[in-house]
């Protein structure tokens, strides 16, 4: 594998057209459903519950007709951090988390308790679940759909002076820039390597490593600012004035089937919250 292919592992902001039920879903319904499922992940602290959640996530992946390996690809760059923090938690967190829990292993400073071991497993599983939900969501939703969805959902809050259109626009632009910036970073890494740059180096010498990144970071910032300015000019020259009185060419055609997804997700959330899981 090439040491420079950054974009390979970034699934955020990519759309994978498979034409599944999830792809055809009204974006508003999909956003609500995603929020409910995320809620279910956030409020389920038990092993058993997370087992159910994993099953739910697999069902979502299947519904979206997305290859599981592809939905999980975003996990690859995060693995070192995950392992690092899991180890920290596991080894040094034992006494402070739940002192009453039985000790499995003890050696000097290091105390591993049953409660902490369970906590570590659950946190890791939760991270994977969140990643699956967000990946499937972005892989099945075009950014324009996402914008219109957010805007439409926030519209009732206009009275409270929530700038729904502008917020939606900010989100869209941020997501749209992720692959663009990754591609440019890849180009710059290669360009500097081509003129003798040794970028990377020892993983543990943070300061020298950060300094070595400057030849990539400085031009990357300049590029981001330049692209931002170009975007402003492009919008101004199209007489963009914000959301007021703006019409869209995209009209949502919602069928009752569309609202099945958020209802099912809400039911799932309620079930997860109220189920008396033994552990």
């Amino acid at each position, binding site marked *: 594998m*090439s040491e*420079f292919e950054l*974009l*390979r592992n970034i699934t955020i902001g990519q759309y*994978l057209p498979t034409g599944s039920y999830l792809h055809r879903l009204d974006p508003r319904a999909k956003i609500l459903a995603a929020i409910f499922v995320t809620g279910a992940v956030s409020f389920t602290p038990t092993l058993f519950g997370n087992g159910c959640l994993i099953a739910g996530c697999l069902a979502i992946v299947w519904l979206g007709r997305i*290859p599981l*390996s*592809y939905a999980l*690809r975003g996990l690859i760059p995060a693995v070192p951090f995950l392992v690092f923090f899991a180890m920290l938690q596991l080894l040094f967190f034992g006494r402070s988390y739940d002192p009453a829990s039985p000790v499995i292993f003890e050696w000097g400073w290091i105390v591993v308790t049953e409660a902490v071991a369970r906590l570590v497993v659950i946190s890791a599983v939760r991270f994977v679940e969140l990643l699956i939900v967000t990946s499937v969501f972005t892989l099945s939703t075009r950014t324009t759909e996402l914008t219109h969805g957010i805007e439409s959902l926030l519209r009732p809050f206009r009275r409270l002076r929530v700038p729904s259109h502008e917020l939606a626009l900010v989100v869209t632009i941020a997501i749209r820039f992720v692959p663009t910036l990754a591609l*440019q970073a890849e*180009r*710059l890494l*290669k*360009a*500097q*390597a*081509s*003129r*003798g*740059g*040794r970028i990377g180096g020892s993983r543990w010498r943070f300061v020298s490593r950060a300094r070595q990144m*400057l*030849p990539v970071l*400085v*031009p990357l910032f300049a*590029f981001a600012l330049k692209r931002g300015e170009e975007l402003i000019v492009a919008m101004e020259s199209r007489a963009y004035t914000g959301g007021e009185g703006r019409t869209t060419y995209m009209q949502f055609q919602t069928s009752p089937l569309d609202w099945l997804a958020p209802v099912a997700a809400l039911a799932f959330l309620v079930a997860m919250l109220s189920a008396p899981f033994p552990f």
Partner: protein
Amino acid sequence: MTGPGPLIVVEDLWHTYMAGTPFEHHALRGLSLEIRAGEIVGIIGQTGSGKSTLIQYFNGLMRPRRGRVIVAGQNLGARDADIGAVRTCVGLVFQDPEDQVFERLVGDDVAYGPRQLGLPFAEIRERVRWAMETVGLPFDAFKDRYTFRLSGGELRKAALAGVLALRPRVLVLDEPTSGLDPGSREELRARIGEFRARAGLTLVLVSHDMDEVARLCDRLYVLHDGAIAVTGTPREVFRERARLVELGLAPPVPAQVIQRLRERGYPIAGDGLTVDEAARAIATLLGAPA
């Protein structure tokens, strides 16, 4: 031109982007070529034909997984290949290289590469001077200029100097004159033409501009869909007119003029590869002294 063997050898090279994902795409399909010392080789082809992917193998930015790439005696497919040696042998200048300039002063930016090599100060200074003079930026006038104050053409030259300062034996240029104003373009083109004589460089030129490659190159490779479709001297390649059109490429403008005249029944000689050549042919036709 019969050196001690070619500097770059590519044999049956395949490249797949986003392998193992639904976006999988074959950029190179069993491509073979070689670059010999002292040559100026042009690589042409439509957008998406694999040119930019191919040149990233020339200095080890990519390592072959299927096929063989040998650069300066190093087999890039081998785990123990000395990539540092390959990168100092082959300098690669990407498209729009001014994006990679990051220092405030021109001299500092050109010195980045040599400094990374850990050379002594005097040697670095000497290399920066030589690189800047070679691309046409007088050292004393430009070394302390702010990079963001340079014109487009000057910035492009500064970026080129940044690679030249590594003293490569082969210089690979991806669309070196694209996006410049006509004046700077013409000047940079002339400079590149002199690189071989001045710096003893072997050049690989990737270009869309047929007039450019016709004028500068000894040999051309025409890429199509990740493989070599046509190869030969510019004269040989541009004679294959029908084949080029099929590949979405047009011969240089002067050659087209000569061809059209011939089609209209004028007894005109030659191929008209460059403007000068075409002008001489037309002058002969009109009976004027060339």
